[in-house]
């Protein structure tokens, strides 16, 4: 398993647990939940950076390269959009909005991994 996917799974899971936990405790979004979503975004940036380095270093994407990058760009929007949507109304429900980021990004990371390895088309 790709170490980046493993790291992604950990960060996404941790973020989702923190956000959903805070929502169950009836907390509005706080530093911890917002930072956990920021960590997901940071992971995506690092993932993109390393993917660029690997590609430029002669490790081609097995699937469609532009599909891979399309996924990554779309994924980068998700945490930012969720953050914006969550702070407009700081209720416990907004923490569930933040909690949806982790699972969503994890699914997208799995898809990106599949595209990279050239497994199955969209």
């Amino acid at each position, binding site marked *: 398993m790709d170490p980046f996917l493993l790291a992604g799974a950990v960060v996404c899971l941790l973020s989702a647990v923190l956000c959903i936990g805070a929502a169950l405790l009836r907390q509005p979004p706080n530093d911890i939940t917002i930072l956990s979503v920021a960590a997901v975004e940071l992971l995506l940036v690092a993932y993109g950076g390393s993917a660029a380095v690997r590609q430029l270093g002669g490790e081609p994407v097995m699937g469609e390269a532009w*599909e891979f990058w*399309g996924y990554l760009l779309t994924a980068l929007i998700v945490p930012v959009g969720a953050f914006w949507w*969550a702070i407009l109304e*700081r*209720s416990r429900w907004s923490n569930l*909005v933040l909690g949806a980021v982790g699972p969503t990004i994890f699914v997208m990371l799995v898809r990106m991994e599949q595209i990279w390895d050239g497994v199955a088309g969209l």
Partner: protein
Amino acid sequence: MGRGGRAVRRKTQGYSKAAAVPVKDRRSTGPGRLLIAVYGVFALSATARAAFQILTKFDEAPLAYSLTAFAAAVYVLATVSLARAGRKWYRVSVAAVTVELVGVVVVGVIGVFDAGAFPNETMWSGFGSGYAYIPLVLPLLGLAWLYRNRPGKG
């Protein structure tokens, strides 16, 4: 209506005080925010997927890919209308969410009888099984939420 309601909603911190908000504006607060967020994710992914399918391989399965594009439009409409206040947008929401539910069920049923009609190429194939059945559950939650927050209630 929507203009004044927006300021009220901003000041309302949390769900507990939501009762003070006019009924028609309550759709995008509390649980509604999560609903809209999930619809937003589906609108985004359906649009991206439809764009990819139509740009790269439309000739392979025009019907299935047109369906993805249609689903994308429905999700975008549902997301936007749920987030907006007022009776007009409420009706748009009901229409969009109902179309979504009918679409998932019809495509799912067609798949049961004719497995080749819509292979795992659309979001609605197999009652949304490729998306953890969220496409099937989402419109049910959406309709329940819309019913609870129908205009003129209470």
